[in-house]
């Protein structure tokens, strides 16, 4: 199998996963008790006519999966949902003044990326470097402290670390306690940019610290494994310096498992984002999800969950692509 068609297969699998996620999402919110759409029309103040109108508007008069009656097989709630999704229609929010869910999600996603990307990049770079050094100097004090740090950050709930940093930052460093910008501040572009950066500092730091330990541990064990391979001994016997061995022979091989594991850990990243955004009132996808739960805003919750799940699937696919580029051996599934 060529590498191109291999990637095509992976892409197809991602597509199937997304379809399954969508279907799962649909039924999760329909089948479980507390059906969101039904909840709205159960209001006793509504007249039977109004209920019927609402039911028709939301398509609730149609069967759930397949329409065996009039209107064709696919004139059902499920396929209507799919059709609406295809047009980017995720319904309207209950809580946010009937705004379309998709536009709420769009701006939240941008905010989340502002938070996640710098923190993730920082954590990956530092984690890779620290993991490399810890593995290289295996068994030394440096290695042991790196391990202890990783274990401790692992045991530290993300939201608690956020609270600690928030407490410290707001009481001693005068940093803002949350949000994206100071409301009412309007002093030109640079002042606003600086203000956003000040707001970003603590959440990014929290996020980066939490991810750092995880990435460092993965990198460390991956590097130790690669360093004990025969070809590293060959490289050493060839007379290369340690730095040359790492750069030319060890680094790429050690990155292979890291790429896969970073992809597998994206769920971890999402749960981190939910917590960090909650603590710092950062208006991203995670905060939106939590707010939707608090306000029982089911269309929004459904949309946010779908968005999070699809992001993870797509990021996984991206990782597969990177893997294919890094490893010449992958030619069969």
């Amino acid at each position: 199998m060529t590498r191109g068609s291999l990637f095509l297969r992976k892409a197809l699998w991602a597509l199937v996963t997304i379809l399954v996620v969508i279907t799962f999402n649909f039924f999760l919110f329909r089948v479980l008790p507390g059906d969101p759409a039904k909840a709205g029309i159960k209001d006793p103040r509504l007249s039977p006519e109004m209920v019927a109108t609402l039911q028709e508007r939301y398509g609730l008069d149609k069967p759930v999966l397949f329409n065996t009656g009039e209107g064709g097989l696919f004139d059902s709630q499920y396929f209507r949902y799919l059709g609406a999704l295809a047009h980017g229609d995720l319904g309207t929010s209950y809580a946010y003044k009937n705004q379309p869910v998709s536009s709420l999600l769009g701006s939240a996603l941008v905010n989340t990326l502002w938070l996640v990307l710098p923190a993730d990049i920082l954590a990956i770079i530092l984690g890779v470097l620290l993991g490399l050094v810890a593995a290289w100097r295996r068994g030394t004090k440096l290695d042991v402290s790196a391990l202890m740090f990783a274990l401790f950050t692992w045991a530290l709930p993300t939201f608690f670390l956020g609270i600690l940093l928030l407490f410290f930052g707001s009481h001693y460093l005068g940093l803002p306690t949350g949000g994206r910008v100071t409301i009412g501040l309007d002093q030109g572009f640079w002042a606003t940019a600086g203000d956003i950066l000040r707001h970003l500092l603590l959440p990014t730091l929290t996020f980066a610290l939490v991810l750092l330990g995880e990435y460092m541990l993965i990198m460390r064990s991956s590097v130790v494994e690669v360093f004990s391979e025969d070809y590293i001994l060959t490289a050493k016997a060839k007379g290369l310096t340690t730095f040359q061995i790492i750069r030319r022979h060890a680094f790429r091989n050690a990155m292979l498992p890291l790429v896969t594991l970073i992809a597998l850990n994206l769920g971890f990243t999402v749960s981190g984002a939910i917590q960090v955004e909650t603590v710092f009132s950062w208006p991203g996808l995670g905060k939106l999800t939590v707010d939707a739960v608090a306000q029982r805003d089911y269309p929004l919750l459904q949309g946010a969950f779908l968005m999070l799940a699809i992001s993870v699937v797509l990021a996984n696919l991206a990782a597969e692509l990177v893997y294919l580029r890094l490893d010449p051996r992958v030619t069969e599934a």
Partner: protein
Amino acid sequence: MKAFNRFRHSKMGMTGAVMLLLAVLVAIFAPLLAPYDPYAPSSPTIEDIYDSPSGAHLLGTDDGGEDVLSGLIYGSRVSLIVGFSAAFISVLIGGVIGLVAGFRGGHTGNLLMRFTDFFLVIPDLALQIVIVAILGQSLRNIIIVIGVLGWTTTARLVRAQTLTVRERKFVLRARAVGGSDFYILRRHVLPQVLPLMLANTVLVISLAILSESTLAFIGLGDPTLISWGQMLNFAFSRGAVSAGAWWALIPPGMAIVWVVLGTTLLGNALEEMLNPRLGRHHLEKEVPPKAEPGSPPDRPEVLLSIRNLKVSFEVGHAPLIAADGVSIDVHRGEAVGLVGESGCGKTTTMLAALRLLPPGGAIAGGQVWLDGRDLVALTPDELRPLRWRHFSMVFQGAMNALNPVKTVGWQIAEAIRHHDPQVSPDGADAEAGRLLETVGIGRDRAGDYPHEFSGGMRQRAMIALALACGPGLVVADEPTTALDVMIQAQIMDLLASLRAEMNMSLVLITHDLGVVAETCDRAVVMYGGVVVEQGTIAEVFRDPQHPYTRLLLAAFPDIDEPERLLASIPGTPPRLDEIPPGCRFAPRCPQAFERCHTERPPCYPLGPRRESACFLVERTWQGVSDG
């Protein structure tokens, strides 16, 4: 029992176990320990809120005027109940799915793993939030949701373990004699899988506790119960940060850290105990070798002179001596076969001589003269430019000796350019192609990756790599094991002809006496870390002086005497920690007498470059030295 002892010595594991045990005790005896009952109805006044720590409230009061310490103590109950019950559900589901997927394999297994992969990409906290929000926030629902969604890691682990167990001999045998699936699972597979599952359970518990506290913090905890996450949620959302009430925030958070850290330490220690990872590698700092003063060999024909080389390995407490005073001379253009059973120190000696010992090994004394320099006395920086140009090595099992993500040609060109920066990249590529042609691989295959080569081709490529810088000495360690007989012969012929062509010296490490007889000028026999006999091929093969050599030869077929029965040597070479006090071979030697068991025989020189370490030759030796 052995595993338990290892666990007792694990600082990490014991710390974790004690931390967890303390938390469990606190949870059980909460009513006795807590100064107040946080569940008792109370009517706090505004003055009671966020009181700083005092005699009445050791950790102050929270947003509801309740005693933080009491809440902390009672909160341990929710954390542990959720942690243990959810982990039980997860491991049960994951265990069954993993066992079935691993044991059944085929379509069922594939389908189950696809199912697992699907759950692996769903962000679990998001899904937990959605489901708890819809089902309702009760302790039962929280346990079920965390438990049902937390099984993926267990399933993957159990499947992998089951897959390896399934192919083991005792399972195949049980299947062959008609054991039912259920019987095999219960009797043979489960006992191998359960210990690993236990270690995994502990880690799943820590994850479940984290999930519970996160859900509670987000506001999805059971509103009727006091939990640490809940305490943090209330304090955080009700102004504890701006009030500066650190006592309402830090203790519940640290309590979570305490329990999760305890379980994680315990789980990691258990995993390490069942699956010890040595984790040593080739780039660890070399133990500085113990150099001794000496002078280079005065005869110009001597290329390599290993003198009294001692190698020790740090294993546990006492160092083990893997090579004890080995002396070997190799002349220019000569091929020397280093023979002996596995574990006799052949490879260790040569790796030590080239300063390539695996981690934990160290040169404990001796000299290695090559081209007028003592390699033992050089610093790593002084040694590096000499490597590959003066001596190179063909490693045992060349399957993994080439970097899988670089082309073969690149790896050869790298060596050339590294030692001669004058060569242009194109020049190095051309030279790599020429070398590959020399070893019988087409120039056009230089752009291939190692995995695109067959085993024999990889071994040839390794030889081409070893020749890249025209070294005076090549050490080849079992270059033909794992190859079929035809390829073996081709590789050996290739080595022999290249050696003659390039006037190199070759040290061939092997247990194949036939190969030595065919390709080498001299043979050195090693046993238990020492040289027991050496001489020319004719001397060693026609007139062996050491009983070990004689037995080795008797164990090997001879084309001149096809009718002779092959004799195996009973017993095995001594373990490094059980080296006998006298002659190392004495316990297995048919001719051993009393002295052999108490006294070490020295190496008796029997002629020019001919010696044997056996008391039986003492008389002959006296004849030699007297005459």
